[in-house]
């Protein structure tokens, strides 16, 4: 904040320039990706066609016609949506219980949940593959992807909701009890309407995390339940250096989520700062 207080010409120029530089550095790969997606595979690797080239939609047409983009996209939408809904269905009551009826162990449970995020995913790759493929026979199903996406995001969902619910005065919930509201009624008629912004931010963030998830969606699917992450992965190695095509696939995979994020910027910022900004 001290930066704001100074008004020398140097700081007036320096900070915006720095901010833009950082922003451009971060944005550059995306920019490069979109740029390359309009080049032919041949142009994509030619240094003299770096900026000046003949734009083409060939990659996009190819992608939709030969690589079944829409099936992957629909899978992404289905799995992300259902995983988010499921995470909220489990997370809202859990966070409610911890926020309004805490016990001595509530803090421990919260930390324990977070600690599951510290476990390297690779460590359980073998058991997960074995169990789902040979034992439960749910490998490469929508059900599995939804379940896994829900579970890996559940800790963060519960943490966020817990933080939002904590801000609601306990007395309002107690007033509900005096008025004879059932537990479900408290959640439906009091808690969710009051924490609506927080629930929406949480859902949005969870959806984005689900959409972007790659480690498990790539490894636990083959074709049926594969998401856009798998489509990108599938276009990467096997047929050599098809950068134009790969870029088109990647652009088409990240575009929906970037657009979604753009429209929900305000909610997202609120969500990511965990309710610190009110």
């Amino acid at each position, binding site marked *: 904040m001290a930066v704001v207080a100074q008004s020398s010409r140097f700081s007036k120029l320096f900070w915006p320039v720095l901010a833009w530089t950082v922003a451009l550095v971060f944005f550059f790969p995306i920019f490069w990706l979109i740029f390359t997606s309009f080049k032919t595979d041949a142009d994509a690797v030619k240094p003299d066609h770096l900026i000046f080239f003949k734009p083409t939609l060939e990659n996009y047409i190819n992608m939709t016609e030969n690589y079944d983009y829409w099936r992957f996209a629909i899978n992404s939408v289905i799995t992300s949506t259902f995983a988010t809904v499921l995470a909220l269905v489990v997370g809202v009551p859990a966070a409610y219980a911890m926020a309004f009826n805490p016990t001595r162990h509530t803090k421990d449970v919260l930390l324990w949940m977070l600690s599951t995020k510290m476990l390297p995913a690779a460590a359980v790759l073998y058991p997960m593959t074995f169990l789902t493929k040979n034992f439960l026979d749910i490998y490469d199903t929508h059900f599995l992807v939804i379940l896994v996406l829900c579970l890996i995001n559940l800790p963060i969902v519960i943490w966020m909701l817990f933080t939002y619910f904590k801000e609601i005065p306990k*007395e309002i919930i107690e007033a509900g009890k005096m008025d004879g509201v059932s537990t479900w009624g408290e959640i439906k008629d009091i808690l969710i309407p*009051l924490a609506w912004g927080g629930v929406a931010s949480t859902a949005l963030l969870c959806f984005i995390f689900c959409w972007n998830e790659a480690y498990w969606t790539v490894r636990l699917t083959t074709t049926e339940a594969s998401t856009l992450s798998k489509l990108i992965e599938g276009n990467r190695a096997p047929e050599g250096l098809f950068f134009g095509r790969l870029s088109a696939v990647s652009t088409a995979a990240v575009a929906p989520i970037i657009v979604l994020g753009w429209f929900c910027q305000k909610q997202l910022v609120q969500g990511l700062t965990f309710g610190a900004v009110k």
Partner: protein
Amino acid sequence: MAGLTIRDARKAYGETQVIHGIDLDIADGDFVVFVGPSGCGKSTLLRMIAGLEEVTSGDISIGDRVVNDVAPADRGVAMVFQTYALYPHMTVYKNMAFGLIQAKTPKDEIDRRVREAAKILDIENYLERTPRALSGGQRQRVAIGRAIVREPDVFLFDEPLSNLDAALRGQTRLEIARLHQRLKTTIVYVTHDQVEAMTLADKIVVLRDGLIEQYGAPMELYENPANKFVAEFIGSPSMNFFEASQEKGGFSIGGKKVSVKLSQEVNAIDIGIRPEHLKQTTKQKAVLSGTLDVVEQLGDHVLAHLVTGQGNEFIAKFETLGDIKLGDTLHFDATKENIHFFDKTSGARLV
């Protein structure tokens, strides 16, 4: 309508006991005020009656029914919270109707009760607003309205005035008194403000450290406090206390003798005299003398802060000071019934 009975009620959080066995009988229609310093357990006790805190042991009965295991909404009580605790996303009307909707009351009955309560509380014009658009005083009325529409056997008020400014507090206090006269429903009211307790209560419960120090009508507590704690807590400004040394046939404060015969033999006592009971007198008749130190002008009366020769500070209440100046030595007397004696070690009142 119903009374309230509490039998040996205790409350513990883990190992820590906060309510140590309360016995209390509240008659139907009484306005009872729980008063005490913060941490005395008054709010906890109220919340136990409401059903928001579990009773660790003992019984709480409303009417003839033990309600220990009855859900808050089914106890026939309604609560007004200190922070109002209105539902911010509902209109005033919905706030008041919400409990009745939960109880599946017919719509026209809900409407009748809400409009009647709104009329009593003078909030008819705000029914379609949300709490956000109301002032503190109006919110408090809505909170009271929410309790009224449920037509409870017992109203519970948890420090309802402490979030209001001074002027509004006085006004709302009067309205609560009127409301009680009108509805004649049992009220249990928690406050830390002894003025609220004195003005509102039919009976006051003075609590300290999870125990009842005294239970009685306001004037009973004022005139015959059971112990030094109650004597100090009730009355404003507080009662003056003086260390007294035993003498033949009585006690003396700084060489001035107070003759009294105590029923018990005690070693050391405190003598208590309220500021309003100190009357100026001559040096010969005085039981107490002090030098005028500070003067507080309060318009209709004056509070004189004095110091005895032994350095004991006390307050005397005057209508007017006349030509008395700072530094003057004043002499006081008090009638026998206005001089209180307390055991120095136990604090108990001695007669």
